[in-house]
């Protein structure tokens, strides 16, 4: 009983963080067809911006939304400078990998210069601890588990029920036809990047609330998000969400039964096996498209 509760809780918690990160990667890939390697850096930057605003004395309820907006703005800017001008290049995917990596390194070193290497911590979403059955958990973790599905649901509603969401899905499917119905493709690309950056910032705020922050804190979540999208298929939004939770549970079970030591290796083995059977991920249909 205790084992099950622990795995369930751990899986939901990790899955929430992974989903938050992976959805942003998938959103950018489906709309623009590029892979944003600075996504982990967005997460880190978001956490630092939030920390700075809190340090200025703002209440987290004001500081966090401001940080999310600011990170979204950086996402927009990044798209306009290192992605948009390259659209149409023959080796777009490759060149954007290098420009987003370079931009990521720029931001990472900028953060290091501004805030220094000393670790920092954000206030938790909810302070305090509680017991679920026999395991002790923090309210911050519970808040993450509850808030994440709400945010993902809101994103889903935005994409499927609003006019702008419809436009984003359209751009993902056919850029020329989108222009011919009068969509502002440039703005929609920027919007996709901005939303992805905002989601990464939220993940950063989640993480900064229970772990020490550092300029390289985004690297590991980016890696996990990569594995999630490989696993779930990158060409949709729902695939990575399911895959994120699945991998969360898998990791929780592995570390419970085999220990943290072997979890990465096991995860990789499962990943390779999956790809040999289903090269485009397990939850994917053909083609590129949101939703």
């Amino acid at each position, binding site marked *: 009983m205790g084992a099950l509760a622990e795995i369930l809780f751990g899986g939901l918690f990790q899955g929430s963080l992974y989903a938050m990160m992976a959805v942003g990667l998938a959103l950018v890939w489906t709309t623009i067809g590029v892979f944003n390697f600075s996504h982990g850096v967005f997460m880190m930057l978001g956490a630092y911006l939030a920390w700075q605003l809190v340090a200025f004395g703002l209440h987290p309820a004001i500081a966090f939304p401001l940080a999310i907006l600011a990170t979204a703005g950086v996402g927009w800017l990044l798209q306009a400078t290192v992605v948009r001008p390259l659209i149409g290049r023959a080796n777009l995917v490759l060149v954007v990998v290098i420009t987003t990596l370079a931009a990521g*390194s720029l931001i990472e070193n900028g953060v290091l*210069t501004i805030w220094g290497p000393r670790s920092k911590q954000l206030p938790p979403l909810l302070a305090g601890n509680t017991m679920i059955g026999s395991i002790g958990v923090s309210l911050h973790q519970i808040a993450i588990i509850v808030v994440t599905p709400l945010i993902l649901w809101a994103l889903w509603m935005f994409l499927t029920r609003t006019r702008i969401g419809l436009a984003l899905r359209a751009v993902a499917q056919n850029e020329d036809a989108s222009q011919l119905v009068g969509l502002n493709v440039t703005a929609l690309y920027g919007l996709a990047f901005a939303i992805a950056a905002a989601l990464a910032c939220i993940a950063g705020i989640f993480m900064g609330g229970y772990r020490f922050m550092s300029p390289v804190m985004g690297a590991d979540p980016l890696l996990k998000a990569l594995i999630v999208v*490989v696993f779930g298929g990158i060409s949709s939004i729902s695939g990575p969400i399911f895959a994120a939770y699945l991998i969360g549970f898998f990791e929780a079970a592995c570390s419970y039964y085999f220990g943290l*030591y072997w979890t990465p290796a096991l995860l990789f083995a499962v990943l390779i096996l999956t790809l040999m059977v289903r090269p485009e991920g397990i939850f994917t249909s053909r083609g590129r498209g949101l939703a």
Partner: protein
Amino acid sequence: MTDMNKRVSGAPGRTSWQREAVGFVLGLAVLAMLPLVFTDSYSRHILIMAFIYAMVASNWDLSLGYGGVFNFGHLALFGIGVYAYALLTKLAGMDPWVALVASGVVATLAAVIVTIPILRLKGIYIILVTFGFAQLVMQIIISQSDITGGTQGIVRIPGLYIFDHNMVRDGKIGYFGIALTLLALSTIFLRVLVRSRIGASIVALRDNEEYAISRGVSLVRQRMITLAASAFFTGVAGAFYAAYQRNASIDVFGMSLATIVLSMVLLGGTGTIYGAVIASFVLTVFAEAMADFGAWRPMITAVLIILVMLVYPSGLVGMIQAAWGGLGGRLRRPT
């Protein structure tokens, strides 16, 4: 200079064997003379690092530029070379030179293993899987800290030797010679390979997969060959790096090293081999020149990489060509 430019810009197979050989020997001779000019061990250290980068980058160009296989785990092959050498010499007590070659073999085997999951994949999925592979090799090395030292790394790794020449107090001339020899061997290997029939079929597969397959080129075999061939000297370079630095750390798996080497490949212009070698020299020397900028250095480098990618789609080669074309145009205009 003219000769250099031709070598860089000439498409593979265009320049005749003889001309390329002459250019190669000339280039090699110039590099071999450098220690006469740079007599201090610090400058020589920079040159040795440039040679190591050049090996890694030019081998990456084989899989990325010629093969069109987006192997983002290339630096993991380098890292595997580093750790293979460290473990073989330190734990297994193997002779350093044997371990150097064995590390290349280990990296080649690792490349064959990565090839299996990506055989049926395309584009972005290859990037994701190979990137994941690199990160997981790192995770495994960190988690197996009993033998790998985890995040602490491995220190006091045995170095290489040349008979009873003193490698420590020779102003680094010994390591300089070895590095240059390895780079020369690696470059000959790569150039011979890309000019061969195998090279032609690798390019054919990259440019038109369906057509090449219909003409009997095997995707599986070709990808395997491309990645394995790009791995051997990368692993050897890793082993040499470990022997030279005398320590191993997981930094070699980090994003920043991968970014720098990848920019060498892309700045050099893909599909030339020489482009990557030249870009490695340029970037290494450039990074050194900026040492005074301290924390600003990586930021300036990042901005410059972005600018070159934005302005010159084909990298430094395109930049050289554009400059050359502009010059040629200006010279020709009066007539």
